[in-house]
């Protein structure tokens, strides 16, 4: 694994790990929004159950993903300050503008969670779900563009003068499509774990659980096989081509895990999660290697900030805070797990009912 990265230092490792956490968490609301749109079109009791399950966790997952997303931004600034800030200056208002769809997506996630929204007719729910999906996808698209602009150092000056945003957007769409497909798989895995909790809390009968899982797994296998095929095709124009077999194996483990789960034999869920996690990490590492090569070729790699940063104190404060907070979070999770809570509160319990009263 180490052979993949010529200089895997602490900062780069922290960047990759926190970015992975961010993307894994973001895959739930992003993929969930795709699934919710699909589930508005198809009918069935298991579909309704799944729809409610995803809707209920949408806002929480956006919140967690944003929280996790702060850290990779911080470490990226240390590892690739030029790529990050130059992309910002080149893109001008486009990057901060992503706050607008992000805010919209966040509030729509809260809306989709409410009991009253669940009672809206499907024909009205679908547009809201579509807008929520579009908003999140817009945020993702801006990040894809920002990254591409940042890593192509040879084009910085040209793009600063003449941005051609439209072309960049069109180029980002196919990538966003891949991200959405991958996120759908991520969301499926998240749901598999949540469904277990639903049954434990008595919100789903074993039969309902089985049907819901089956629907998800069929879909996930279909998407995952498609994604694997696309990866094979794309492989041809990758500038770096190292350890491709790890990605292949990871995808294989994931798909096999889904299949095993579908037939209720053995720990399919754990295998699928492991495979997906490894696949995501490999993709991130490969992208990082590609970025370095681009930056070196274009003369935009800046290691000086990193070298200075390494000499700065405060690491102990970070580690101390990390241990303290991680312990705290584990305790909170334990406390929550043991709680036989009813459904999470609907926000209109408090606000809307007040108005009705």
């Amino acid at each position, binding site marked *: 694994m180490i052979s993949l990265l010529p200089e895997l230092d602490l900062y780069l490792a922290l960047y990759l790990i926190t970015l992975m956490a961010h993307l894994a968490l973001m895959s739930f609301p992003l993929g969930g929004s795709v699934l919710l749109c699909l589930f508005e079109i198809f009918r069935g009791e298991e579909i309704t159950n799944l729809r409610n399950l995803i809707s209920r966790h949408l806002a929480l997952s956006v919140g967690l993903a944003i929280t996790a997303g702060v850290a990779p931004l911080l470490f990226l*600034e240390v590892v690739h300050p*030029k790529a990050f800030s130059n992309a910002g200056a080149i893109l001008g208002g486009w990057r901060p503008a*992503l706050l607008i769809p992000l805010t919209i997506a966040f509030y729509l996630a809260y809306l989709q969670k409410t009991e009253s929204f669940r009672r809206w007719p499907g024909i009205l729910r679908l547009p809201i779900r579509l807008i929520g999906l579009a908003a999140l996808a817009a945020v993702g698209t801006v990040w894809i563009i920002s990254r591409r602009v940042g890593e192509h150092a040879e084009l910085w000056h040209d793009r600063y003068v003449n941005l051609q945003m439209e072309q960049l957007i069109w180029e980002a769409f196919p990538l966003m499509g891949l991200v959405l497909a991958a996120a759908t798989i991520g969301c499926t895995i998240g749901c598999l774990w949540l469904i277990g909790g639903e049954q434990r809390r008595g919100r789903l009968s074993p039969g309902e659980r089985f049907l819901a899982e089956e629907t998800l797994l069929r879909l996930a296998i279909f998407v995952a096989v498609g994604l694997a095929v696309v990866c094979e095709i794309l492989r041809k124009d990758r500038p770096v081509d190292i350890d491709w077999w790890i990605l292949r194996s990871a995808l294989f483990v994931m798909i096999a895990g889904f299949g095993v789960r579908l037939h209720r034999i053995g720990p399919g869920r754990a295998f699928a999660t492991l495979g997906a996690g490894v696949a995501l990490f490999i993709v991130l590492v490969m992208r990082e290697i590609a970025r370095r090569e681009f930056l070196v070729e274009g003369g935009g790699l800046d290691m000086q900030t990193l070298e200075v940063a390494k000499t700065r104190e405060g690491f102990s404060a970070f580690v101390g805070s*990390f241990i303290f907070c991680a312990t705290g979070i584990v305790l909170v999770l334990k406390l929550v797990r043991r*709680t036989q809570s009813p459904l999470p509160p609907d926000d209109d319990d408090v606000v809307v009912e*007040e108005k009705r009263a």
Partner: protein
Amino acid sequence: MDLPHFPVFASDAFLPGLLIAAVAITHVFLAQFAVGGGILVTFFEWRAEKKGHTLLRDFLHRFFTTLVLVSFVLGAVTGVGIWLVTALVSPRPLLLLVREFHWIWGAEWCFFCLEVACGYAYYVHGRTLGFQKRFWLAAGYSFSAWMSLFWVNGILSFQLTPGGWLETGSVWAGFFNPSFWPTLFGRTFASMALAAIGATMVAQLIRSYDESDTREIVRNAATLLLPLALMPVAAVWFLAVVPEESRRYVTGANVPMTMFFALAALFSVLIAGTAIFTLLKRRPLFHLPGTVLLAALAFCATGATEFVREGIRKPYVVHGVLYSNGIAVEEVRRLRRRGIDSLDPWPLRDPEKYPTRTVRNGRRVYRELCSSCHTPAKMNGLVHLTAAWDRQMLESNIKKLHLLKTFMPPFAGDDEDLEDIVAYLIWLRKGTE
């Protein structure tokens, strides 16, 4: 110093710094509301249990939902927003702060995660848990929210008073800088006041509460306004440790700065006065519109305070080290000898707009040195500020910019750059006549 150079984001229509100000003030307001909200919830939990107060408990959940919907969402989004906008408008200062304090920021992020975990757990399960667990969640939430403030405050106060960091380069000397404690206390008091006002507003919004219910809640919430009485101590302490010229800005030398400082003080006094009245009379002073007005005052007080904090640092972003336009103090000498070209390799965005090579270079000098505080002809527009000056005055005045107005950085270009920016200004003047 050795900071890399980044291209400047400039707009001819508005000052990009205002973008930062807008996002930052909103974020500070919401973040402080969240910190104070945590303290209020913990306090109410304890009160409700001790006195068997079911009303307070009922109120808590409604209040917390508001907190989640407003501050979790907008607070998180504007937090990311500050990062993105600062990376755009002031990339060099941001990089300096990140390079020095990334582990501090990392620590802050850990507490931010804990805050979110405790907050969501309380929000989702608060109603079904027993007192002890609920109390611990609330306490965990408020402690971690306050710790986020603690870490970030070190970095923010560093910018005005870098303290021992200037000599030793030590991160900790920069973190526990001279204005660290007074600003930490000040922000904590302000947070509690914001939460008390927020709670009053939420209580008045709940229709099912009658007059005496609201009164009861407001009376309890007003306790959190009391620390405002200590605000003058924090303010005096703060003024005592800031650099001499910053102190002069708020004590008359700079009219807008003095005015904003006075406004922030006045609003705080008004808010504290409301608290005392509420506690003495045991009833809220205002109906809902009055409370909304009070919240608006609090927002203005936050805005004015942040404005003063940013303003009195001028011409620096990091006092004594880095100027507002991103030029490092130690770079000025070299730039005066070798010119802006030696720093900034970026082309002009629209070169065809400028007629001659001189004007084009003048535009680049303006972009690099002036555009963070001046537009050509709109906000704080150079054309209007220099309308009465002839070529000679332009040259001699711009050459000693930092003496002309103490909140401007020195002109950091060579003789040719000076000539070129004068040519650019004269060309601009012709275009706007």
